């Protein structure tokens, strides 16, 4: 039977400075990636169809994958799904009607697979529509983040522990964004949902840690270890669930669930590091040195 337990880390072997250095370095690299991308491409992360406009067709056809592009005026991105003869085609063109006609054209179009419809699904967003979705998405993330920070301050009512939560949550958002840039995952409605969920999810372990250290009696390291036992279990459980969901959804060709799964997996991994290195060392500094000052 699979069995795991959370190992006890000997935190007293490392200084606060050493502990903080790693997550801060990762955060700095992530910010560098995003700002570099902003300077070069104009956006910190690649924008997907939902925000930049474009068309996505799901087709069922016996035409081989490498011959599919020749049916269209514009070269599409072709992704096979786990279903046989089913492909997802992505275009920058927003004229879905014309693309559908090209796909179903009797001579130059795609081969019909039995008697199923060639075009199984169409999703098309005009460039202007996509652009108008950018602002609400940004606003949603900003409002969620500010709201979460307000709750953090309300819960602990002291500056250092609260700001520690806010900083690690910020890093939890920035790292998956940089990951998206590096791996080329475009920002879609699904990834925005993932990022928002991350704001809610990732602070749980921080709240747990702060609560154990600040509101309970007992030795700092003992409290930390108990918080970690619970917190790491939580985060790892969520990570495994998201990984399974992400992989399964990717195989089935369900973009929305696949992107939510990926973003959360990466974000929660970042959260493990941020909570137990960044947040923890800020808390330790506060507990041993900050209180008196």
């Amino acid at each position, binding site marked *: *039977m*699979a*069995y*795991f337990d959370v190992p006890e880390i000997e935190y007293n072997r490392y200084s606060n400075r050493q502990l903080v250095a790693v997550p801060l370095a990762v955060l700095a690299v992530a910010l560098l990636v995003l700002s570099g991308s902003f300077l070069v491409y104009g956006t910190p992360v690649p924008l997907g169809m939902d925000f930049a406009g474009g068309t996505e067709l*799901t087709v*069922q056809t016996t035409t081989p994958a490498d011959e599919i592009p020749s049916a269209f005026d514009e070269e599409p991105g072709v992704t096979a799904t786990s*279903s046989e003869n089913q492909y997802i085609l992505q275009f920058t063109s927003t004229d879905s*009607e014309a693309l*559908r006609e090209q796909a179903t054209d009797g001579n130059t179009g795609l081969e019909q697979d039995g008697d199923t419809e060639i075009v*199984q*699904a*169409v*999703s*098309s*967003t*005009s460039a*202007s*529509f996509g652009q*108008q979705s950018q*602002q*609400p*998405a940004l*606003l*949603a993330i900003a*409002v*969620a983040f500010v709201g*979460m920070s307000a*709750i*953090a301050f309300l*819960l602990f009512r002291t500056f250092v522990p609260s700001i520690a939560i806010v900083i690690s949550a910020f890093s939890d958002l920035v790292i998956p964004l940089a990951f998206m840039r590096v791996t080329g995952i475009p920002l879609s*409605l*699904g990834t925005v*949902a993932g990022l*928002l*969920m991350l*704001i*809610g*999810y990732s*602070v749980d372990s921080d*709240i*747990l840690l702060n*609560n154990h250290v600040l509101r*309970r009696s007992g030795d700092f390291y003992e409290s930390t270890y*108990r918080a970690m036992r*619970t917190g790491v*279990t*939580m985060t790892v*459980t*969520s990570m*495994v*669930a998201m990984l*399974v*969901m992400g992989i*399964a*959804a990717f195989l*089935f060709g*369900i973009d*929305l*669930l696949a992107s*939510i799964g990926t973003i959360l997996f990466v974000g929660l991994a970042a959260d493990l590091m941020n909570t137990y290195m960044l947040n923890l060392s800020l808390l330790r500094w506060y507990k041993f040195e900050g209180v008196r000052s």
Partner: protein
Amino acid sequence: MNPISAVKSHWRVLMLVVFVSFAVVALFIPGGIVADDSYAASTVDSGPTNLEFGLGLEGGTRIRVPVDGLTAENVASSNDVDQARLDEIESTIQSELDLEAADTSVGVQDDGTVTAEVFSGNVTEDEFAAALEAADVDTSGTTIREGVTQNTRDDMIQTIQTKINAAGLSGGTAYEQTTPDGNHYIVVEVPNMGAEELRQLLSERGVVEVVAYYPTADGNQTNETVLTGEEDIAKVDPPEQQGGSYVVPVQVRDSAADTFQQRMNDLNFTTDGVGMCSLDSEGGTVDFDHEGEQYCLLTVVDDEPIAAHSMGDDTRPGQTGLATSMRNEEWANDPSFWMGAQNQQDAQSLSINLRAGSLRAPLDFENDQIYSIEAAHADDFKQYSLLIGLLSVVTVSGVVYGRYTDARVALPMIVTAIAEVVILLGFAAVIRMPLDLSHVAGFIAVVGTGVDDLVIIADEVMAEGDVNSRRVFQSRFRKAFWVVGAAAATTIVAMAPLASPWLSLGDLQGFAIFTILGVLVGVLVTRPAYGDILRALLTDR
């Protein structure tokens, strides 16, 4: 233990059982606990549950599209102008910009200001401003913007809704969506309809006219609009087949009937013109290549003639021909006649257009968003979602068991998490919320946060050795719940902007609402119950 104290000490678990039973009834008993049919009356339920599914899991098309037009706000104040002046402005704009009557509108808004609208994509703001000045409008306080007025949009949504219903597509809805930066979209959702068809239905403005096509004194033919669908036609019946072609029986308004009858008599349609129409209208378009004089009544939809007919005299026994009764000036007493169409499809859409009225403004399909999915493909998604959901539950269970290796702790945890999903699904069935992929993501998120919180409770309760008294248990449980409540609060706050109607990001609203609901159900019902279950299993009584 007597029954009352038993209930008292287990009320949380009892509440969970009650909620789950309600959910199961709502889910599986046909017609269980169901809200009124208005919300999603269409979706015929054939599945084993009472769940309703949205477009993404059922098949259908959704189009979000802005309205094409320009609006000049604050053209005048309603105190300074009368109806005659409004009409004058409108007709000047029409002639200046060379537009049809249906393409302009000048009217008083609710706040007392006068607005002028132009519904044609080809007019620029400068041209519009020039036309307003030509109409002697003081344009100093006027602002011209893209889009149309709220009144126009409301009117269009109503028309579209009628059009969808008239096309026999139940379950379709049309509503307005506004982005935070003030752009307005009309959203049309129709289950079981392809993108092509729906676009066709919406891109037709449906301006129906009856045009008289007759010879003038100099031997040429000319056109004259004698009836306009919306203004002159009172009642429309479903299409009927008449010989080789199709007709739509309509009744003309009394106010227009006399004029129409008079005009037909004046133009000799009821005398020389009887039976004198030989225009060929095969294939839905009318061929105007002809010899000799023609007296035709053309059915014109969106400036496109679709059929041509002459007036008939007493051709069938026992029935008075249209020409006869018009000649005798009796027709206006019972002013009904048939409008012609070539084929059934044309007749159907003619009837829809006449009944629904025309769209006040065209829709701008250059800037739209379309989502369309075949029913079969949507059904695949339904099964995949179920599978992904099950996989997630199994995975979480595996990890939880691996961590505790104690069935007394892990098993109730898994059962509680599943109960949470069942309650949520039951809730969805009760309010008949159409489920989509985004809700599935929400469910999985709920399982995730749910188990997280159960882990917090279990760890806290079992910390520092065995739990042997109820008091110890209670105090530990209360401590754990502080963290659970705090975590729930952050999740709700993070999701709140997405769930709010002011910040609509389409698909994500369902996800956010479901996650919030799940968290609430968790904090208020399932997690306290888990605490009780755990207590019963851990404390020896």
